[in-house]
């Protein structure tokens, strides 16, 4: 991890911050798309280094936050079955469904296991041939190739007791939805570096052109994010709307072709429901027909039946850049990390959890 230190050096960071102060002449609203970037911004207190004219708003790039209530309810129903071992990333266990969360199911005796990769879930399936093993496959373009790989391997190994509850999201359609939404405040984007490492960034060029927004592919370290902001602000000040790549050490224009190939092999593009936002056309992935037997929703006959989200959570408005976590009347009161009303208070990549956890003077005073 030695390579991280150079992106956290005070002198380098201060130099970029000073350059941002120098070029900015008026207010700009910039959205960092990825929850990992939100986390870093709040954790490192980067807003403290920026001129007051620059407002960072936090995008929808946290898979835990955008997974729909319906999918959470399906996960809870499947995980409650005595014949199932349910494997999930840890954060998902605390996301509230219509009625409880996965931790409640675990406490009631459900066999729910925290995993760090779909391949661990695959191993659980191999080790437990008499159980149905379900992997909660959530994420963006970044995690999807590994999930596709698990499907391919399960096919090769002829595993009949392995399936995925898929909740996969694509970033470019979400950016388009934010740009085209009435009242959108976002004037420039920091695109998610990891997503672009897989997908490249050609898809962003038409968006930048059509909606007149600069888009900067950006990494996750303090220096990356400040450079991303600088590249974005320079364009905004000059009236330019290009796609630029700040994160060249990990991203090239075409992305990872092997990963894209396996994605295409296993998944189809489909409409997708985003929690708090609603359905966005062609913004999700579902298993292709030839892999439908790995679809846990289908295997367990899940109905599409969740009602509206009545929690009072304003996650949708936060993830579209319309409001900040501190604007929510429940933030830090009824909604806290140990008792979340909505998903953004759960995940470390959720804007609300990041604000809550990494309070600095300004955000602490706000509630």
């Amino acid at each position: 991890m030695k390579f991280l230190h150079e992106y956290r050096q005070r002198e380098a960071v201060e130099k970029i911050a000073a350059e941002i102060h120098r070029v900015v002449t008026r207010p700009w609203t910039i959205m960092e798309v990825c929850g990992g970037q939100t986390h870093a911004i709040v954790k490192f207190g980067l807003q403290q280094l920026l001129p007051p004219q620059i407002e960072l708003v936090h995008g929808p790039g946290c898979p835990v936050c955008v997974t729909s209530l319906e999918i959470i309810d399906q996960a809870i129903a499947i995980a409650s079955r005595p014949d199932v071992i349910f494997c999930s990333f840890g954060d998902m266990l605390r996301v509230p469904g219509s009625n409880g969360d996965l931790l409640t199911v675990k406490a009631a005796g459900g066999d729910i296991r925290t995993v760090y990769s779909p391949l661990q879930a695959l191993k659980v399936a191999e080790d437990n041939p008499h159980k149905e093993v379900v992997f909660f496959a959530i994420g963006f373009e970044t995690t999807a190739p590994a999930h596709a790989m698990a499907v391919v391997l399960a096919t090769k190994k002829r595993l009949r007791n392995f399936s995925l509850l898929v909740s996969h999201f694509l970033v470019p359609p979400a950016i388009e939805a934010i740009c085209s939404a009435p009242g959108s405040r976002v004037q420039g984007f920091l695109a998610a570096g990891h997503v672009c490492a897989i997908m490249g960034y050609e898809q962003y060029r038409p968006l930048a052109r059509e909606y007149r927004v600069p888009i900067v592919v950006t990494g996750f370290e303090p220096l990356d994010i400040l450079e991303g902001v600088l590249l974005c602000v320079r364009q905004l000040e000059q009236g330019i709307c290009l796609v630029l790549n700040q994160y060249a050490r990990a991203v090239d224009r075409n992305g990872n072709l092997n990963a894209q190939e396996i994605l295409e092999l296993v998944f189809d593009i489909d409409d997708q429901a985003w929690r708090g936002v609603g359905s966005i056309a062609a913004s999700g992935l579902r298993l292709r027909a030839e892999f439908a037997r790995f679809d846990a929703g289908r295997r367990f006959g899940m109905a599409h039946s969740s009602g509206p989200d009545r929690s009072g959570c304003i996650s949708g408005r936060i993830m579209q850049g319309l409001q900040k976590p501190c604007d929510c009347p429940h933030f830090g009161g009824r909604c806290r990390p140990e008792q979340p009303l909505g998903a953004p208070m759960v995940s470390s990549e959720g804007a609300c959890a990041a604000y809550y956890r990494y309070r600095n003077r300004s955000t602490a005073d706000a509630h």
Partner: protein
Amino acid sequence: MHTECPIPVSADETVRLGHGSGGELSQRLLREYIYPHFDNAWTVQAHDSATLPRIGGRTVFTTDSFVVSPLFFPGGNIGELAVYGTVNDLAMSGARPLYLSCSLILEEGLPMKTLAAVMASMGRAAAATGVQLVTGDTKVVEKGKGDGLFINTAGIGSLEHVLSIAPDRIQPGDSILLSGDIGRHGMAVMARREGLEFDGPLLSDCAPLHEPVLALLEAGINVHCLRDLTRGGLATALVELAEGSRRQFSLRENDIAITEPVLGACEMLGLDPLYVANEGRFVAFVPPHQAQQALAILQKCPVSADSRAIGTVSASEAAEVILRNSIGCERLLDRLPGEQLPRIC
């Protein structure tokens, strides 16, 4: 006298319910696996309770339970942890640890060789620390009702000083000393449990802390407060102390040592090393004019050789912990909403 037993002890023997029955199997368990490691006057008594000699001065009493999974992790095991954990709780009052109890809850099916290894390790840890195991208990639960082995230890220590070492003695201006690099225990357990491998060795810091603490006291350092960093890590310990003392602490992130393997593992798993558990680290609050002397004393003890001053107590009465990070920005540290990692100690 050795009672004849019709069943020979085999290397692959496992714990059975009968080992907790109080009958012959229980006796054998004690005799063969437990007593040999606590060879002292009290276990020879083989009595329901230990009668201890009068302890001079004030007496300190504490208890802790250990449920770590896995039982063996890089750098330690549950047996050592059960000795050091309670010794460290005593040490944080500035006490000299003297006696421990040891209660075992064994799960049916636990391999005897696992038990033997854990007990041998407890014996070695007790001997190295200078505490004596004087009383104990063994229960066996059915298969599936435990996780191999749980241990409870209680400890008694004596105070040989007149200081009150407590959060309410933390004063503005106090120097905050940290006894070494952080996050190793939590990440070592995690790496073993999840089968993760990282660059470089990732060993638990599991160790007894009474030696550096007693060295500070013997040198006449006016120690205001001590706290060992266990679950919740450095951040949680300091937040609790800030609240307990109604004081504001200012920390410098650059002075908090974290090894590369711990940093790497935390980055990969999305964990914050400030919140990762330790089992051989503590913070000491000392008056500023004694900070350098205290630091030099700590650095002379192997277990706290990498001690550093990491911050100071401010005059403000806001009960909060402020971290100035490597890029010069500030953030408030807060409690974690839940455990970062379950069952690490």
